[in-house]
């Protein structure tokens, strides 16, 4: 990967607003007073030690987890218990998981066309064209008729990205998309994500790929114990971390 950071225009338009958000698992306070505003076109990398609540945070944004206090607003729609709002937000926000979560009983193409056909009511033919377009983009159009079980991990993750893109989301969430992959496959998935960033997609990405963060992110967020401890642009974040916890964390993951 080139060390040249992507220069992208970040617009003033606000994509996500999270304010005073708190979440508990039973009595366990996972997320504490989270305040975060994401502008359209921003690429945010979230990092932090295991169990610090990174996954929980981004899963709250598309209501895979319910928050108990505070508010989350996505694209001007307030996340509440109203199912209509939740479905609307979910169809605007794409998500990629650590373990891909492709649908093993459907072919790659069917995986990609399912949501457009059933949620967006796109005609089948059009949905297939879109799907092929995005499969080409992630460089695996030739696998369209295979089943997920027949693909390598990296290919599966790229299919998962294509599947999300087929819904034409305005925001993409990634939860450690590369941490279940071998090194060679990590590169192919990261390349896809970089391409996506270059096109101006709003991205929130939980990852420990610091090279990726330097190159793509315009903001790095460090979380610990359910709180946002530090956020900064990548250059300053890595070269000059302020909080001792950030320093410790960075020394641990960059140390070897």
């Amino acid at each position, binding site marked *: 990967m080139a060390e040249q950071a992507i220069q992208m225009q970040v617009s003033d338009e606000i994509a996500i607003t999270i304010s005073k958000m708190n979440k508990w698992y039973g009595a366990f306070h996972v997320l504490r007073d989270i305040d975060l505003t994401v502008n359209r076109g921003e690429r945010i990398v979230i990092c932090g030690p295991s169990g610090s609540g990174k996954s929980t945070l981004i899963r709250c944004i598309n209501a895979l987890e319910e928050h108990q206090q505070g508010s989350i607003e996505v694209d001007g729609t307030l996340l509440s218990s109203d199912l209509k709002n939740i479905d609307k937000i*979910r*169809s605007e*926000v794409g998500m990629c*998981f650590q373990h891909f979560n492709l649908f*093993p009983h459907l072919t790659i193409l069917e995986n990609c066309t399912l949501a457009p056909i059933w*949620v967006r009511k796109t005609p089948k033919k059009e949905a297939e064209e879109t799907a092929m377009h995005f499969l080409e983009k992630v460089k695996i159009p030739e696998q369209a008729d295979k*089943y997920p079980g027949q693909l390598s991990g990296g290919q599966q993750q790229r299919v998962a990205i294509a599947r999300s893109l087929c819904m034409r989301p305005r925001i993409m969430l990634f939860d450690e998309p590369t941490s279940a992959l071998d090194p060679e496959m990590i590169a192919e998935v990261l390349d896809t994500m970089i391409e996506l960033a270059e096109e101006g997609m709003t991205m929130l990405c939980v990852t420990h790929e610091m090279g990726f963060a330097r190159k793509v992110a315009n903001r790095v967020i460090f979380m610990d114990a359910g709180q946002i401890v530090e956020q900064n642009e990548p250059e300053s974040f890595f070269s000059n971390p302020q909080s001792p916890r950030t320093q410790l964390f960075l020394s641990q993951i960059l140390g070897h």
Partner: protein
Amino acid sequence: MSDTELAFVRSEEIPPAPPPASEAGAVKWMRENLFAGWFNTLLTILAIYIIGRFVVFAFPWFWNGVWDAGSIKECRDILSAAGKTTGACFAVLVDRWDHLLFGFKYPAEGYWRPTLAFIMLIFAAAPALFAQYVPRKFLIFTGLYPFIAFWLVWGGSLWVPLCILAAILATAYIFRVVENLDVGARGVLAGIVGAAAGLGLAFLLFQGATELWFISNSVGAGGALGTLASLLFKAASIFMFVFFIPMGIFVGYAIYNDAEDGGLVTVVTALFAIYVMLAYLLSPVSGALNAIIPIELQAVPSRDMGGYMLCLILGTVCVSLSIPLGIVLALGRQSNMPLIKGVCVVFIEFVRGVPLITLLFVANVMLAYFMPPQSNFDLILRVIIMITMFSAAYIAEVIRGGLAALPKGQYEAADSLGLNYTQSIRLIILPQALKISIPGIVNVAVGLFKDTTLVSVISMFDIVGMIRGPIQQSTDWISIYWEVYLFAAMVFFVVCYSISQYSQWLERQLATDHK
């Protein structure tokens, strides 16, 4: 050979070679599988001895079998005249063929009707069972089949099943219309339906309570247990009396309240419509149509169904009803809504905790107790309800296992793509969960099919009932045993083995995970 070369560079590629031919041969196979070691050899010899004894014993019995005789005595005479010490009287199968298949009351001139229905069943099942190979449009025939088969087997006016079909189609239409109503219109409708449903429920509760009160008086006489039962019935009826108005109001209000979202209103309206049509319109309309254009077969009452036909009817109907019901129960048990979850859990645990025979007795005796006196609730229908409930509870548990085996990520992926609950269940969760559950479901289905013979204990004459009653106790075939039961075993084996083979084939067809 002083120092070993560590560096190595391959100079030429090793060409791919075909896999070694497996060293086959009968002798080698036998040595490996039958005579590996002294213990294995001993077992083989023992097995050969047992099989040999059995064949020596059973073969003459089969071979000497008499196929043409009018009674067991005649058959024995034939055997002893020929000087045979052993021999089967297969003549009973010939003599009582019709009874074994159709029972002893089904009108003989109508045997073609269930036979035709059975042949059509094969064609009706094919589009559903072999979906990949049969064009989808044949599913229409599958959908129509229950009505055709019902008419063929039970007879009566063709207009009755046609009107039921029309009522179902009309209900589907009403469902669609209500689903697409705008909020204002739906609000009005919800008000009307809510009021009607509330009133209806209140009335039902009132009736049920009265009925229970009445029963409590009649069971009170029989000792301590009777007194306890009577008290329980009394308590239940008082409970229902107290709650019949509030429950009605609550249900009505809940339906009205749901007008905005519309799911409940739509379902209740549709249920309401089909209830009204079946309860109040079915018999006058079909009667009127039949008066104009009479299309009738001789009507056969449920009591007259019997033989293997009865087992097949109960088996196919109950299996095809209990799978959807089992799916609903399994999903209900996973539900976040405490009421729905509670109802499903109680139902499943209760039904699984009770022997099927008890349920059948309940169907036979108790249900008649609870029904209003004048209502004549068909016996087969009652039995079908009980067997379906029973196997649905088991299937629900099998499917719940399948649902639990799916990783949470599948639900999350479906959710994150914006699929709603119904879509994610139908498109993502069920196809996978059912695939995992196939062996379990088939297990239940096979068990259920064999359990249909239990209806013989409530004096229905299925194939076992026929054998135990009219055949073994007739003067002609008194105490004939092996031949008839062997026949029954064989016909059940054919069906159950086919089901099992089908399920294995289906599993292979659906294998996409390449583990």
